[in-house]
């Protein structure tokens, strides 16, 4: 129990409440999408699976394919080459070079190939500015829509990141003030009074919130770091230590310098280089590879691996391209190990929960879900206590619309991917966004017209349940492999996502139905909404 003077307790109470209400709805949106984004990789694989599942690593013959494609692009773009996987483990190979535009702006231009992970056949090719190439990628659109909503609420940079960073700070403030406010912390962890109405709702909010406090703090802190590091941190550091040169600051932190030598030199076999990296990294998958100055004497390759079993962070290994020889283990930042590098690397597994596969992701999903629950119930409790005031009753409608409408809009958005053309003039991110906005508008309209908010809540829950149950069918209509075929080919990830969707859909329908029965059996439960009708 933490004792504070009355005045300070009141100040904290105001901070706790208003920090939650003012930005609570946006925060709820960020947490909700973050919960789903924990499984972004699995969702991406599920939404756009290949007929034949991808092998664990790049197939033999990658080096030959690489050289063939390198010969098809402008040799200037051999300056830097990136290799990374996306949905269904399709491999992206981006050849690009750096240049200065007419207005002195730094530009990156190149060619990207999307490769089938089994045959290494080219699935698509894009040429142009790297920024446009990134915007033109389509294969991972379902996961990207979720992640982009979580990271920057689909707002342009840097405003979206600044907003989500600020929301993270508010969440951190709410978590810290909550720690001080809950005087009977340990008692409240186990307090759940079985009574219908406000008291039980309050107990559930406090219990979930109390259990979730350390995790909420962790997520808020790491999320704020990710939002602010590039938008505020690096420019601020550049201003002080590099006379405002952000490029120089970034270079100092990340460049893997080898002595410059532009002499042409044949690159070694990439199959052997990547196999050696996997062996050194304990057999882990290749998460990312960066090749610089391919075909030159100073060429190097930086291979980032997925974490070893039981490890938090994957190895980053540096190789010489001409010899193919292993040079050293490379820190993410700088050239030698450092405290700063270790702490920055820790941010990622702590925020994404991806350090122990599906197990840790499931734990992060559950804790994130509890966070969303605490945010929503906190907002509902706040407004229900002020139910006699007209403005708060309208706020209560808004909270119902966002709280129960957002999951519905999120569940509806992938239908645009499955049922509309993916390669047309409209990018799948745009069609998903439009469907998301359409469903949101309908939910807002329904919440404005609803005479009974409890019925609205149940209606939105039921609609979300139906939308989730329909997603596997929409995927089948969209042309994905059937369940029998997926089972035979061992596509367990796809089947797991569909099982989770079916389960979540049934749970939504169950809670919608249970809410209806409870409302019919006990009139006091619907008391808050009768005030709404008055």
């Amino acid at each position, binding site marked *: 129990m933490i004792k504070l*003077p009355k*005045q*300070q307790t009141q*100040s*904290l109470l105001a*901070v706790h409440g208003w920090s939650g209400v003012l930005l609570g709805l946006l925060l709820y949106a960020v947490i909700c999408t973050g919960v789903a984004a924990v499984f972004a990789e699995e969702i991406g694989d599920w939404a756009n699976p290949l007929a034949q599942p991808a092998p664990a690593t790049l197939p033999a013959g990658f080096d030959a394919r690489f050289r063939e494609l390198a010969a098809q692009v402008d040799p200037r773009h051999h300056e830097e080459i990136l290799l990374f996987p996306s949905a269904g483990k399709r491999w992206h190979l981006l050849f690009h070079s750096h240049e200065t535009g007419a207005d002195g702006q730094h530009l990156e231009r190149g060619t990207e190939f999307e490769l089938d992970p089994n045959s290494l056949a080219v699935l698509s090719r894009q040429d142009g500015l790297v920024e446009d190439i990134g915007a033109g990628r389509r294969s991972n659109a379902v996961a990207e829509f979720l992640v982009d909503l979580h990271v920057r609420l689909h707002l342009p940079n840097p405003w979206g990141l600044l907003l989500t*960073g600020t929301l*993270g*700070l508010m969440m*951190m*403030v709410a978590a*810290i*003030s909550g720690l001080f406010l809950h005087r009977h912390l340990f008692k409240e962890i186990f307090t759940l009074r079985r009574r219908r109405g406000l008291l039980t709702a309050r107990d559930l909010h406090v219990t979930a919130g109390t259990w979730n406090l350390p995790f909420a703090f962790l997520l*808020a*802190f790491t999320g*704020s*770091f990710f939002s*602010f*590091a590039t938008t*505020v*941190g*690096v420019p*601020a*550091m550049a*201003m*002080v*230590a590099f*006379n405002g040169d952000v490029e120089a*600051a970034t270079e*100092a*932190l990340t460049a893997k310098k080898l002595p410059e030598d532009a002499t042409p030199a044949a690159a070694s076999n990439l199959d052997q280089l990547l196999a050696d990296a996997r062996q050194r990294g304990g057999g882990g998958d290749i998460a990312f590879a960066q090749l610089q100055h391919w075909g030159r004497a100073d060429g190097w390759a930086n291979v980032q691996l997925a974490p070893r079993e039981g490890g938090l962070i994957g190895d980053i290994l540096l190789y010489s391209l001409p010899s193919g020889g292993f040079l050293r283990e490379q*820190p993410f*930042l*700088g*050239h*030698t*190990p*450092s*405290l*700063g*590098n270790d*702490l*920055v690397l820790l*941010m990622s597994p702590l925020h994404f929960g991806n350090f122990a596969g599906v197990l840790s992701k499931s734990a992060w999903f559950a804790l994130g879900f509890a966070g969303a629950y605490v945010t929503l119930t906190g907002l509902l409790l706040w407004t229900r206590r002020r139910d006699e005031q007209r403005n708060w009753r309208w706020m209560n409608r808004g909270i119902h619309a966002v709280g129960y409408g957002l999951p519905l809009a999120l569940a509806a958005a992938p239908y645009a991917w499955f049922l509309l053309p993916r390669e047309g003039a409209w990018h799948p991110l745009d069609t998903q966004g439009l469907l998301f906005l359409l469903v949101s508008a309908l939910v807002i309209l329904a919440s404005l017209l609803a005479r009974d908010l409890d019925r609205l809540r149940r209606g939105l829950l039921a609609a979300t349940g139906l939308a989730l149950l329909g997603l596997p069918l929409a995927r089948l209509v969209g042309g994905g492999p059937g369940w029998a075929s997926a089972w035979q080919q061992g596509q367990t990830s796809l089947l797991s996502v569909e099982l989770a969707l079916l389960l979540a859909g049934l749970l939504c329908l169950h809670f919608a139905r249970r809410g209806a029965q409870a409302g019919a059996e006990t009139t006091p439960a619907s008391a808050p909404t009768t005030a709404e009708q008055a």
Partner: protein
Amino acid sequence: MPDAAPTTRRRAWLRGLLAGPLALLAALLTMMAGALWLPEGAAGLDHLVLPVLVFPLLWAGWFLYACLDPRLPRGYAVVGGAALLQLGLILAHVLAAKAGGA
């Protein structure tokens, strides 16, 4: 008594100013000046990375302090003093760099 409400409102605004923009400014300046007084570490980058890493904590810390200090003038003195100290360090560094460059 008639003056009580305006005084309370003014204090609320002053508290908001301290906890909002001033706390943010203090956190930003502390982060930037951290590059000047933190040890560089073996890789020569700890002084650049650690301030960015703790920036959210700095902001949350200044924000909560600004909300909690019962004496508003003292709150302004502490937050403002810390911000000015860090600003002085940054200005001294920038001026020294310019003098060196000239």
